[in-house]
């Protein structure tokens, strides 16, 4: 049996699945249920300053997009940080941590960008026995209009400053949660590191308008005839999150900085992918909000069974394993050649590969052969783009087959070159030409 125990910047949990700071971790009732279901840890719903709590809208706060059979693909929200009194939260956190000493309990915090505000709240949190804190620099709506959340996360200097205060005023490990609403995610990560953060977590939600109510001409969710941009999450954001995690993992300046991966994680497989790209553990929100806490059971057994099948003993065996294989485009091997191949027994003859290639790619798939409906790749036209693989409704029906070294590429008439050669040295590259001259 694979060992799923997680040690993330010294915070221990029985598995790497944490619930992200959000409605699922809003109060003791939910968190107790989550722990009963098997979650390894929670990041408590973001705490704000002492005083009257924030108020949420009283109309709809979520919007969504759906795939086939109304499967939820993306969720968007305009919720703020916790709207409960700070002391109620702190009391409950303390009680829950006492009840569940083996689980991770992290406090997410967002207070104004002033040293005094942070200095005031940190001891209160420390007193609960929480295992660490997460700085919410990500919330992209509402709080950011008040100079908090993403408004801080978008200015690397502020991040560095606040992290430094936190490191100064608490002994708890500090996790800095980053906003994806920025052009280059490496900048805030570097700033957090410079401030002394123990880890970063990402991504928070993405600025989004999820849909427009076409009867009232207002964005959804519509509150009294108006809408505002919200934060986007769920399966649809996973590719964006994966890239950002990988960018930080392979950046020489932040290399080795622990990462808690977040964004669209719905199955064990998603989680394993984040781990492979450098995450030390993962956090989940939308999947739990869609299906309830029980999904963690699938995640735990799926990850464990896969690790057993592949002979990975513990999480360290996986974390970061894919990072060395993430590179820049310019270093991809241009002498690697692959061609699509259709498994005729699996093909159901829907014609989608043909029309996709015919209308939008390289006219490399037949529709008829000898007057019979038949879909076959013409190797002399196929550029190996993979579009047909992606549009075919039958999994593994079309595969990309590597052309072995030495065989003739029917399209170019040239044999496959055994040597690695990339754009930096390619004769068509003006820079390479200059360098050669």
């Amino acid at each position, binding site marked *: 049996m694979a060992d799923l125990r997680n040690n993330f910047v010294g915070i221990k949990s029985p598995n790497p699945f944490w619930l992200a700071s959000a409605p699922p971790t809003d109060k003791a009732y939910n968190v107790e249920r989550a722990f009963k279901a098997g979650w390894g840890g929670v990041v408590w719903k973001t705490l704000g300053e002492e005083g009257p709590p924030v108020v949420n809208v009283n109309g709809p706060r979520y919007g969504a997009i759906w795939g*086939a*059979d*109304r499967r939820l693909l993306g969720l968007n929200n305009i919720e703020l940080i916790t709207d409960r009194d700070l002391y109620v939260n702190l009391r409950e956190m303390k009680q829950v941590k006492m009840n569940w000493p083996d689980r991770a309990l992290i406090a997410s915090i967002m207070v104004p960008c002033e040293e005094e505000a942070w200095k005031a709240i940190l001891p209160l949190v420390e007193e609960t026995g929480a295992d660490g804190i997460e700085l919410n620099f990500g919330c992209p709506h509402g709080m950011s209009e008040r100079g908090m959340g993403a408004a801080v996360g978008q200015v690397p200097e502020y991040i560095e400053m606040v992290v430094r205060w936190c490191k100064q005023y608490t002994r708890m490990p500090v996790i800095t949660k980053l906003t994806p609403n920025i052009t280059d995610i490496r900048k805030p990560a570097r700033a957090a590191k410079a401030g002394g953060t123990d880890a970063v977590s990402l991504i928070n939600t993405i600025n989004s308008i999820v849909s427009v109510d076409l009867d009232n001409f207002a964005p959804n969710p519509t509150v009294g005839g108006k809408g505002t941009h919200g934060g986007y999450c769920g399966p649809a954001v996973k590719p964006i999150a994966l890239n950002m995690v990988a960018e930080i993992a392979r950046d020489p300046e932040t290399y080795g900085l622990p990462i808690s991966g977040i964004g669209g994680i719905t199955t064990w497989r998603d989680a394993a992918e984040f781990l492979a790209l450098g995450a030390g553990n993962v956090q989940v929100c939308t999947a739990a909000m869609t299906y309830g806490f029980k999904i963690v059971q699938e995640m735990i057994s799926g990850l464990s069974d896969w690790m057993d099948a592949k002979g990975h003993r513990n999480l360290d065996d996986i974390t970061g394993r894919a990072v060395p294989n993430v590179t820049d485009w310019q270093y991809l091997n241009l002498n690697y050649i692959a061609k699509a191949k259709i498994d005729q027994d699996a093909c*159901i*003859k*829907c*014609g*989608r590969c*043909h*029309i996709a290639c015919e209308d939008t790619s390289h006219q490399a798939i037949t*529709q008829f052969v000898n007057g019979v*409906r038949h879909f076959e790749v013409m190797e002399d036209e196929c550029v190996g783009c993979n579009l047909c693989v992606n549009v075919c*409704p*039958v999994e593994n029906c079309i595969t990309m087959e590597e052309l072995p070294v030495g065989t003739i590429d029917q399209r170019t008439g040239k044999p496959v070159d055994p040597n690695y050669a990339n754009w930096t040295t390619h004769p068509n590259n003006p820079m390479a030409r200059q360098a050669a001259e």
Partner: protein
Amino acid sequence: MGTTQSGILGGRLPLGEYESNFSDLHPPLDKHEALVASDRCYFCHDAPCMTACPTSIDIPLFIRQISTGNPIGSAKTIFDQNILGGMCARVCPTETLCEQACVRNTAEERPVEIGRLQRYATDVAMKENKQFYTRAETSGRRVAIVGAGPAGLAAAHRLAVKGHDVVIYDARPKSGGLNEYGIAAYKSVDDFAQKEVDYVLSIGGIEVKNGQALGRDFTLADLSEQYDAVFLGLGLAGVNALRLEGENAEGVDDAVDFIAALRQSKTKADIPVGRRVVVLGGGMTAVDAAVQAKLLGAEEVTICYRRGKEHMNASEFEQDLAASKGVTIRHWLQPKRIAEKDGKVAGIELEYTTLEDGKLTATGETGIIAADQIFKAIGQSFLGAGLGALQLEGGRIVADAEGRTSLANVWAGGDCVLGGEDLTVSAVAMGRDAAESINRAFAAAAPRASAVA
């Protein structure tokens, strides 16, 4: 009463049971079900389902329109090719047409539910009485149509759209042809056939004269004289005879008459049926008669077909339906003699058959099945009175792919034409295509606009 009383009787069942027995065979999809079902369509390129549809409805497009919340646009896609798309959605043997061709059969042996989705979209549009077509400026041309069945109605609608004036003559009191008098009651509930006729006619420019029979009240020559073109959509008004001893006994009935009476009855309780019923034949009519006899409360219903299962015209689905309702289907049996008692049917003697060198031959071995009612469903035939010199072959009208007959300005389509498939949807296709052909003929004959104004 009850199912065990001998003789041919109505009211065998409690009233409520009739209602549930004759309710929709395939209940309509609600909106959620339609969305789920439409999500399964792959939007195939040059879709095989579309090729398999005799009217070539753009199936991937109409299903995509349902899935994007546009059932009205979807209905238009359907009606553009098939103005009787509502009835076809109910009666087409989809398992041998579009749904058989659906690639999802290959993927997981369960096709997209094309028929039910088509019904969903057309129901939405018809409920709103959404009219998609307006007539072109009137052309001044007049076309006579004989037969208000699927072929005649489809032709009339397309001609009206093109601006021609149409008069339909039909011998029956109601329009719709077999949609009204033939289709099994549980395939077309709630008087749908008449609603559809009204929907089709609301385009305008079509006058229907019911109770007017060709050959009795007028001849083809009369029509050719009075109209610029004639379309014959006469269907098959006759029924094949058994030519057997005892055929005239009381209780030997034509399946089509039984079915027609059923369709015209509101409660169904007034339709008498035997206790032991034998149906002779192997097509859709045989299955419909047998199933409905069972649903009326007959104790025992047996279909006897003179060839094997694989030769039956009734589809696999229809055979299964019959079996599920408790009908017994027996093969390789042909009728030999009808046994009578006091002028009434008492049973039927049948003889086993076999195929010898591809020829059906009787084996000489016989057996008797007790019966108090026997339905003949061994095929309908074309009755052609008043057609003059019109060329017939094999008892049906000879027409080319566009529906042109041997006579100038006379077109034909539907079951009455040689080589058809005897399906509602094929009749619609033939009527529509003949209308296009008539329209082209008119255009070609139109006096050219003079070069000098």
